[in-house]
């Protein structure tokens, strides 16, 4: 349908799973270390964040590993610039990453056995470190040219930056969604927002830098390319607003123990929705080599998904407020 193949969809889910598993391990590691370095309430809250991210990484690992079982061929290039790996490069990458996937499955099995009794910060640090190293290696080798040249750097940069961009955006949303109505906990989450934003900006910068490594044949002026560039532009404008004045306002409110006012909460939701859907969209469209949808159709679908997500949120929020009033 529209030049999309089911295996390309599976490959997209593999990348999504890897990006979230990597990012939740990275930020889970940060929170597990922070919980060890603090005492009292701070320690408890940071440990709670690390545990939330442990479950998020489990779900993401399940998605990535399931997709790996089905298919391992990844034609990963982002923001519409396509450099398709050859079948030899994909086979080489598969041969390199297969043992890592096996180690990952075994590691997850052992970790679940250990953590079924109790999750300690020290144990989580070991788990997150090992998982981050594994995922980082796997995601950095979507294709293997046989040597470290410009072409390999292109594949590697386009692979691992997903942890810093898509994965970190998803992680931030998971954490924020869980605590947004609990200012007593959210005030511990808010201070890391600027750091998270920086990591996302740097990730996008790495993606832009790797554009300098592309070959002329990689720049295909298709509807997909123009659409991706439009989404990147929107993503930057929205990101500046979200990570700038909006985050500062939220931090200020959380620090004095206040909840987000409904208007600000809705604006933050719209901005967050645009961010998460934009990142997912540019990753998604690049996994479909022969996408035949025209520019305006792609843009229409993109806007419809954003509008639907915001409407659903407003509806659920309205029901939640009504429920609280009845209680």
């Amino acid at each position, binding site marked *: 349908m529209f030049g999309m193949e089911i295996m390309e969809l599976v490959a997209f889910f593999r990348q999504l799973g890897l990006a979230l598993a990597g990012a939740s391990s990275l930020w889970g590691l940060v929170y597990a270390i922070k919980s060890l370095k603090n005492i009292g309430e701070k320690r408890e809250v940071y440990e709670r964040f690390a545990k939330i991210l442990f479950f998020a990484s489990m779900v993401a690992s399940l998605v990535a590993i399931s997709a790996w079982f089905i298919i391992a061929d990844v034609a990963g290039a982002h923001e519409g610039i396509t450099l398709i790996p050859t079948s030899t490069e994909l086979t080489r990458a598969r041969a390199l990453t297969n043992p890592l996937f096996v180690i990952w499955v075994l590691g997850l099995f052992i970790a679940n056995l250990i953590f079924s009794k109790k999750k300690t910060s020290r144990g989580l640090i070991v788990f997150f470190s090992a998982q981050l190293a594994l995922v980082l290696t796997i995601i950095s080798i979507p294709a293997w040219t046989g040597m470290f040249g410009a072409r390999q750097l292109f594949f590697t940069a386009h692979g691992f930056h997903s942890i810093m961009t898509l994965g970190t955006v998803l992680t931030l949303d998971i954490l924020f969604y869980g605590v947004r109505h609990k200012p007593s906990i959210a005030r511990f989450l808010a201070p890391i927002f600027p750091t998270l934003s920086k990591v996302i900006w*740097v990730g996008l910068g790495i993606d832009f830098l790797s554009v300098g490594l592309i070959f002329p044949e990689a720049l295909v002026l298709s509807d997909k390319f123009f659409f991706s*560039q439009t989404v990147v532009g*929107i*993503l*930057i404008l929205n990101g500046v607003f979200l990570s700038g*004045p909006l985050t500062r306002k939220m931090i200020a409110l959380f620090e004095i123990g206040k909840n987000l006012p409904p208007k600000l909460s809705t604006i933050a939701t719209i901005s967050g929705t645009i961010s998460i859907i934009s990142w997912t969209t540019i990753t998604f469209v690049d996994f479909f080599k022969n996408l035949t949808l025209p520019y305006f159709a792609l843009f229409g679908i993109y806007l419809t998904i954003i509008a639907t997500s915001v409407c659903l949120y407003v509806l659920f929020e309205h029901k939640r407020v009504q429920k609280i009033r009845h209680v």
Partner: protein
Amino acid sequence: MLKFRFAEIAQMCTGLGILISVPLIFFYGNFNVWFFAKIAYVLGITIMLIKK
């Protein structure tokens, strides 16, 4: 009233640059704005990292 910092305004300019470059590439095949916006973005991020 929303207050933007200088670095944020600069970042917004790169975002706008990429948006503007879409019709420029489509109608005239002109990549100058596109490349300039991306290079400016990377430079901006580098400065942000060095400053902190």
